[in-house]
């Protein structure tokens, strides 16, 4: 009889994962703190051509790039003369499962099928679950999705309950849990029991699946406007969206395009707290995931995450829940596009940043997501109100996550707030060297830190000096 206590299962983590992903991550490890990220992506992922082929076969990708003319006109009314970039949105909701996550799932499930796994498992409360379920249906594989759905009173987030329905619509089994990081424990036990593939969000093939998005963006802009987008804004949670998009843009040669990450500000709320679980209206795309996963990417469910957003990010902004709900309604009312709120996080940031840019520049929001019962501004605001959240018009700057949701009284109050990139970069370096074993860091390790933090040698050495780490 297997010992299935929490400690025993967590102790078997590495062997369970190795069998469930088919990647021996140790071969990419350096002797010291780093690992060879590019070699891991090259040897375990797929080429861009292969990915386009794999995704194309299941109807994923080649989504329309829509110009948001009325939102651009609105932004220009708020901006200084000559300012107000053209705002575009990539309609990823038109993918088979209703979000860009279909790109990640297409590759992961194809890979599982090719390796001969009978089924796939993913731990996700988000759109990725339905994306994996949809792909599993196409490939004839079994599918289990493990979700964090309820608080201890059995009250579920409407958005997550809807995603469970969607997974079940594609024939998946949905295992629903109450709040807590031990979801990972249940996930490991299911992997061990079934021998299914871990369709993790953070494998090289999953992340590489998003590269097609960045590549398409560049091609669409070049064909229509003769240039690459000036700025691309990505909603940031686990970092895969931004990482994959950035890598795709680089593969297209769009080296001048600036990458902006945007997350909903949920500061002050603890993500593993039972009592705070239903005080938030966003279950992903928020700072509770975005900040820790950016500065410590290997906290994911694989030994080395392929999502490493700080390698690519030029700027990281936060927006408020109220602003995202407001912008979701604006998108429906002014552009005739009814989409799910979570995907509009980046749109709020773009609306604000466009006002800093020149009129002839292009800013792209690289995703939309589907909407429906539960996963829509009305049920989400209605649920918030039932949970005692104060909803009113006012200045979003006065927002307190978990206490109120402030809808902007006027669109000119919509403001993306910059996070301190210097602090984030230092944090990346600090976390990366936390477990260093070598007395003196070598050149390979210093180069790794430069790439991880998107900084130069002088910056890394100065930070190491501050941390008292020798090299």
């Amino acid at each position: 009889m297997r010992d299935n206590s929490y400690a025993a299962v967590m102790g078997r983590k590495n062997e369970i994962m190795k069998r469930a992903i088919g990647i021996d991550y140790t071969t990419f490890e350096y002797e010291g703190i780093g690992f060879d990220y590019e070699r891991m992506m090259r040897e375990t992922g797929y080429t861009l051509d292969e990915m386009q082929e794999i995704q194309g076969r299941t109807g994923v990708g080649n989504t329309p790039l829509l110009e948001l003319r009325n939102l651009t006109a609105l932004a220009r009314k708020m901006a200084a003369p000559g300012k107000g970039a053209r705002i575009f949105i990539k309609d990823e909701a038109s993918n088979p499962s209703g979000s860009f996550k279909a790109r990640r799932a297409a590759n992961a499930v194809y890979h599982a099928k090719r390796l001969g796994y009978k089924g796939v498992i993913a731990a996700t409360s988000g759109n990725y679950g339905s994306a994996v379920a949809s792909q599993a249906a196409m490939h004839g594989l079994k599918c289990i999705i493990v979700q964090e759905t309820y608080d201890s009173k059995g009250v579920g987030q409407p958005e997550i309950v809807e995603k469970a329905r969607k997974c079940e619509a594609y024939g998946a089994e949905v295992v629903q849990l109450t709040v807590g990081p031990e979801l990972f424990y249940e996930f490991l036990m299911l992997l061990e029991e079934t021998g299914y593939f871990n369709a993790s969000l953070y494998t090289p093939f999953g992340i590489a699946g998003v590269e097609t998005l960045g590549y398409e963006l560049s091609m669409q802009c070049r064909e229509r406007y003769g240039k690459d987008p000036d700025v691309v804004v990505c909603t940031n949670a686990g970092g895969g969206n931004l990482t994959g998009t950035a890598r795709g843009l680089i593969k297209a040669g769009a080296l001048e395009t600036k990458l902006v990450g945007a997350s909903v500000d949920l500061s002050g709320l603890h993500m593993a707290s039972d009592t705070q679980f239903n005080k938030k209206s966003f279950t992903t795309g928020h700072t509770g995931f975005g900040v820790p996963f950016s500065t410590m990417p290997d906290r994911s469910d694989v030994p080395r995450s392929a999502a490493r957003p700080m390698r690519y990010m030029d700027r990281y902004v936060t927006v408020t829940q109220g602003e995202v709900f407001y912008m979701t309604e604006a998108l429906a009312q002014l552009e005739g596009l009814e989409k799910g709120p979570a995907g509009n996080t980046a749109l709020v940031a773009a609306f604000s940043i466009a006002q800093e840019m020149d009129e002839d520049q292009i800013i792209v929001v690289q995703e939309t997501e589907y909407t429906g019962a539960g996963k829509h501004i009305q049920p989400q605001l209605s649920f918030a109100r039932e949970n005692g959240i104060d909803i009113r018009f006012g200045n979003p700057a006065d927002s307190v996550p978990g206490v109120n949701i402030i809808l902007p009284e006027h669109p000119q109050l919509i403001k993306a707030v910059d996070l301190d990139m210097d602090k984030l970069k230092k944090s990346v370096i600090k976390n990366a060297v936390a477990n260093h074993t070598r007395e003196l860091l070598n050149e390979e390790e210093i180069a790794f830190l430069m790439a991880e933090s998107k900084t130069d040698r002088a910056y890394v050495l100065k930070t190491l000096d501050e941390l008292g780490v020798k090299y």
Partner: protein
Amino acid sequence: MTVKKGDWVRIHRVILTPDQRAPQVPDDTKQVPLEMWVKGFADQEANIGDEISVTTITGRKEVGKIVELEPTYHHSFGNFVPEILTIGVTLKEILFGGDADER
């Protein structure tokens, strides 16, 4: 017996009791168990509240107490939220209704 063999049911089981929870869990979460719900075909006759085994849609066996026979989705478009109604009206006034409200 209200549940027949082969009926589609939703079951509930405690995965970890409060004292078995992970050390890093916040205090409020540590007070409560980690619970699980899953759906499956009943393997035997039973009543609501009985502990039984089910066969899930992927063919796995799970055990737990029956909480619902023929489980139904209850999520919806929620209650009317009056604030939402005004957003479009305001925006259209700003964008198309002249510049009177530019502030």
